[in-house]
């Protein structure tokens, strides 16, 4: 809401400077967004951001009331031309309200002999400074009075109304109306219309019709000052995407008692600016009187909610300064009736806010509440997130945060860990045509980050994203999960002298990341790894999925060579895992074990096996023996090439032996190891080496 300081002063004796007034308004919840001097005119233009609850402040009169309450200045009203009693108006026009709940009041006056022309300069300048285009003196007067009072007015060319029977009704079967901007509007049955007989002439509270618009040859003006239901106006305006000055005000609540003053003021200005002669009498249909109900305001509630003690006298003074009537007092509190223009005040809490606002928020002390020990503070999930982030940071990965919007194509290729269990969630109103779905996977985002960073000459790119992915499940309801994805491209960044040899990461580096994350989460269970069922964007031979039992937890691998080619990049690795799922496997407690009392003995074992033999099989087999003296087994080498025959490979393991109750002797260990090696040779048809 923009207005000039001089205009405000026509409504209230402002005792303060424009700057002081602006500050007072801001600190009372009417934030002055700008205050600019109007060059050479000793005047200022002020813009107030009016919150949606304060429809009354969408007119200078409302702001003047606030200024009066805040600074003690006296309110005054600019001159009007009231109607002269008589039946002229009633004979010329008939008004009928068919939807009184949507139109509680319809008032009108008529002016004859109007000479439509440009408005006087002073009016045009004011309107334009306040952001409203001047059109002609009649339209300008309606806008001028709307800015003054907050009451939208509409002027019809009465000579263009065939029947002069004004009917306020819902559209029902009426299909179309050309509004004064020249657009043909499709009507919905619930739209409220102003009709001339059966012919629609305006969308009530939104915009007038083209056919009855005031033109240069207009002589007789019918002025409408009505009150319409906020929700009804909003529905129509929103559906037709019309945001007019009138609809903006009606949506936010206009003073139902303000129609007559606004009309009388407009008639005064029309007489002055357009030489109009008012018709005797007026029309005022008011089938539903909007009555304010008294609100009980309890003193205890005021002090309890605000944390201050306001004296009864002070509270009463503040309420009265806002035009409220304090009807009666009892031990509990007071019965307060708000004025008709404050339609936002309906409850005790609303009154308490008014008291706080006028008393001044800055005068309320700052206290710290006593907080109950509800056992809060440690958040398991947050701590796991932080640990994993810290681990990845140490491994050289930088965190990315990406928007969740993606394209249909990318979702088809990168479907995360949802398998074919679900479809992507679509956005009904996307911002762009390549952002119509919510991501199934975090990988496309990281790919985009990779591309953008390589374009900026990054030498390598190690990144992760801990974010949400979305999916429609079989029941068509949306599921969301927190995933973790990582991407490793190029040799790991190193600071210092250039390394002799830069090693690009391989599959085992990616697997190492996953193992590290499991370790950080304290998950001791070993996941099962499989090369079957990996995504088509991964290299068919250098990728894996892993999980616990039937539950798939993640995948990793080198991206498919076709994808690298498409992106014009050297091979790189990705990892994606169901972080939320993994955290469920993380133990809530850790228990320490005592140190072993006797030393362990280690022995190595090398076997020659088929080139496709999975190294883990021997580890698992040994572990499943559950031998009390075998403590651990690890693979430490895989070798192919001479002297190992073509198509075969050598695998080397180290086995730790330990007894809990004694030191094992060499002879004992040698015998154990020899027997174990022989059994492995038999079971796996492996040739023992060395």
């Amino acid at each position, binding site marked *: 809401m923009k207005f000039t300081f001089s205009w405000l002063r026509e409504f209230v004796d402002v005792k303060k400077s424009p700057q002081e007034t602006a500050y007072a308004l801001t*600190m009372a*919840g009417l*934030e002055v967004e700008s205050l600019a001097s109007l060059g050479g005119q000793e005047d200022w233009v002020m813009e107030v951001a009016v*919150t*949606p609850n*304060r429809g009354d402040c969408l007119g200078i009169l409302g702001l003047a009331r606030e200024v009066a309450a805040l600074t003690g200045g006296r309110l005054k009203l600019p001159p009007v031309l009231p109607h002269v009693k008589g039946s002229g108006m009633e004979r010329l026009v008939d008004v009928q309200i068919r939807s009184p709940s949507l139109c509680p009041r319809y008032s009108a006056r008529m002016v004859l002999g109007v000479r439509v022309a440009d408005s006087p300069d002073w009016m045009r300048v004011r309107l334009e400074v306040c952001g409203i285009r001047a059109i002609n003196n009649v339209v300008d007067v309606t806008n001028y009075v709307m800015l003054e009072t907050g009451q939208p007015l509409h002027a019809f060319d009465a000579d263009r109304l065939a029947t002069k029977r004004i009917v306020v009704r819902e559209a029902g079967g009426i299909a179309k109306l050309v509004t004064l901007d020249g657009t043909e509007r499709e009507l919905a049955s619930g739209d409220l219309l102003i009709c001339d007989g059966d012919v629609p002439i305006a969308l009530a509270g939104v915009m007038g019709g083209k056919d009855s618009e005031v033109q240069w040859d207009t002589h007789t003006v019918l002025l409408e000052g009505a009150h319409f239901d*906020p929700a009804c106006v*909003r529905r129509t305006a929103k559906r037709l995407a019309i945001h007019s000055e009138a609809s903006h005000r009606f949506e936010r609540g206009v003073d139902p008692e303000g129609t007559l003053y606004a009309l009388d003021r407009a008639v005064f200005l029309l007489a002055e600016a357009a030489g109009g002669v008012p018709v005797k009498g007026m029309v005022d249909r008011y089938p539903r009187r909007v009555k304010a109900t008294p609100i009980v305001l309890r003193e205890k509630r005021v002090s*309890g909610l*605000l*944390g201050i003690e306001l004296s009864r006298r002070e509270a009463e003074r503040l309420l009265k300064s806002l035009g409220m009537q304090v009807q009666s007092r009892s031990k509990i509190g007071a019965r307060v009736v708000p004025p008709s223009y404050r339609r936002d005040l309906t*409850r005790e*809490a*609303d009154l308490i*806010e008014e008291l706080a*606002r006028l008393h001044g*928020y*800055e005068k*309320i002390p*700052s*206290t*710290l*509440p*006593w*907080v*109950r*020990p*509800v056992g*809060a*503070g440690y958040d398991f*999930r947050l701590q796991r997130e932080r640990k994993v*982030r810290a681990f990845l*940071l140490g*491994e*050289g990965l*930088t*965190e*990315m*945060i*990406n*928007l*969740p919007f993606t394209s249909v194509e990318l979702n088809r290729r990168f479907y995360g860990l949802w398998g074919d269990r679900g479809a992507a*969630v*679509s*956005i*009904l*109103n996307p911002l762009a045509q390549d952002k119509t779905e*919510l991501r199934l996977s975090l990988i496309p985002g990281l790919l985009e*980050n990779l591309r*953008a*960073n390589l374009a*900026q000459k*990054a030498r390598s790119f190690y*990144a992760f994203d801990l974010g949400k992915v979305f999916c429609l499940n079989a029941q068509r309801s*949306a599921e*969301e999960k927190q995933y973790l994805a990582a991407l490793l491209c190029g040799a790991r*960044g190193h*600071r*210092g*002298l250039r390394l002799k040899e830069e090693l690009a990461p391989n599959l085992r580096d990616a697997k190492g990341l996953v193992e590290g994350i499991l370790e950080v989460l304290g998950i001791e269970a070993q996941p099962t790894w499989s090369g079957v069922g990996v995504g088509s964007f991964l290299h068919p031979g250098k990728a894996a999925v892993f999980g616990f039992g039937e539950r798939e937890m993640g995948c990793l691998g080198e991206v498919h060579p076709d994808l690298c080619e498409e992106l014009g990049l050297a091979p790189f690795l990705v990892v994606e895992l169901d972080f939320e799922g993994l955290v469920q496997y993380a133990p809530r407690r850790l228990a320490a074990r005592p140190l072993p009392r006797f030393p362990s003995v280690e022995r190595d074992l090398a076997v020659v096996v088929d080139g496709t033999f999975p190294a883990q099989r021997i580890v698992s087999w040994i572990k499943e023996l559950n031998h009390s003296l075998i403590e651990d087994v690890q693979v430490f080498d895989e070798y192919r090439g001479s002297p190992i025959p073509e198509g075969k490979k050598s695998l080397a393991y180290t086995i730790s032996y330990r007894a809990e109750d004694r030191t094992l002797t060499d002879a004992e260990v040698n015998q154990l190891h020899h027997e174990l090696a022989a059994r492995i040779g038999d079971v796996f048809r492996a040739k023992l080496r060395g």
Partner: protein
Amino acid sequence: MVRESLETLKDEFLSRIAEGASEEEVERLRIEYLGRKGKLTFLFRGFKELPPEERPELGEALNRLRQFVEDRLEFRLGELKQREKERILKAERVDITLPGSRWERGRIHPLTLVMDEIIDVFLTMGFEIARGPDIEDDYHNFEALNMPPDHPARDMQDTFFVSQDRLLRTHTSPVQIRVMEQRRPPLQIIAPGAVFRHDDDATHSPMFHQVEGFMVDSHIAFSDLKGVLTHFLRQVLRPETGVRFRPSFFPFTEPSAEIDIQCLLCEGGGSTSEGQPCRVCKGTGWLEILGAGMIDPEVFRFVGYNPDQVSGFAFGMGVERIAMLKYGIEDIRLFFQNDLRFLRQFS
């Protein structure tokens, strides 16, 4: 005569050993004096020719001399070895101005850094964390927050819809409703997370992050809201940050407040040292940073609380906004472009 020659021999040895500058020379001296044909060995041989009464005294002198020579030789050898070691160590000295060697560390995203700071201040005040879904229903995102379908306040939040009734949450406030539906007071909760608005320019991103917080109990007043948020802002920004509360409007709080902090750039003065209006606060000296208020009784009714028995405050803040003010970032899109050159600045 023999005694004299012993003295001469000792003096001569001392001057020779002082000249011996290498281990080899010391070794040669050892042979020259103590070897089979050495000078001392020679004296020992001549010893037998001495009269018996002179032998004990001279024998002792001779033995002392031999011990002396041996000790000196050993000492000199040690000295030379030490000197050699020092020489070698000195020769090994490296160029300490060469750079250190280390693997590149990753970085935590600046939004996570700021989010963590915010969360930690509230955790230390006894708040706990709650989470809610990003895909919300109209009821939790709007209606239960006192924004019925035709409420103009909905204009303030342009919404992404995924179906007729489901949408991407426009704020983290629905978590308030979800928690209160499940639990009874006392509650002291923060809800961090991503939120979405149908908007895209230098100051608006279609996704951004908020931290919602609320406290509900039998005794919570507006003055507590002021205290908690003032404490929070001074922890996260600067201890001396000026904070002001002014009335505002949110459908789900009453009274509502907008909280401003003194501009971090011009420190509240509103203008630069050259007298130009400050570009961060546009000359006002203040920056909006938080929205807050006492939870509206209507909201309590939606979740089945009796508004006469409980009271509480709620607040919400934009994480990007705080990060932008804290680090002097002017374009919100930098957070989501994920350019390593930007991210590496936050160590």
